[in-house]
């Protein structure tokens, strides 16, 4: 069971960060960042299998591959932005975290615009 490893790593990182925090605040932020990176890397190695299954399903259902890659890109942007924003918020930089989230929202909107335009065009074609 790998969930025990994940929980163990998380708890170890949290305890070490709390222990170091009172003497050395920057290192505590780096410890929590490293813990998050290790856990995120592990989760990402599992996500790869899911995404290959998803793309196979999409190719069987004759869905345009462009839409799937757009959705996957949006997922990636959301994960990365959430990670960075949480680290910034843990370090006490709430305003930087808010700006990261704002930039991520803008990037997601830019990626989603072609899909919205395609939807609009199909709706217009249905209308008499």
């Amino acid at each position, binding site marked *: 069971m790998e969930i025990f490893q994940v929980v163990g790593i998380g708890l170890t990182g949290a305890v070490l*960060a709390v222990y170091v925090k009172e003497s050395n605040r920057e290192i505590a932020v*780096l*410890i929590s960042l490293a813990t998050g990176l290790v856990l995120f890397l592990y989760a*990402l190695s599992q996500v790869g299998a899911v995404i290959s299954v998803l793309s196979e399903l999409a190719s069987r259902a004759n869905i345009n591959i462009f839409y799937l890659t757009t959705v996957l890109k949006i997922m990636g942007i959301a994960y990365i932005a959430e990670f960075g924003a949480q680290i910034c918020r843990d370090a006490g930089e709430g305003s930087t975290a808010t700006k990261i989230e704002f930039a991520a929202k803008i990037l997601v909107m830019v990626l989603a615009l072609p899909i919205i335009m395609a939807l609009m065009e199909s709706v217009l074609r249905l209308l008499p």
Partner: protein
Amino acid sequence: MNIELIFQIAGIGILTSIFHIVLKQAGKEEYSFIATLAGVAIALIMVVQLLAELLNQVKGVFFL
């Protein structure tokens, strides 16, 4: 999952805090600041390498 990195960074943190206390007791305030800065820089280099690996993997998985 390389948990050694977390222990290494925590060790650097504890060592730098000990250096800080010792150098402060010896009356070398400026050296204690530099020692803390060096510890933070070393830990930052280690974390940034892991971060680059993570970003590369995200780039590969999500077609970014």
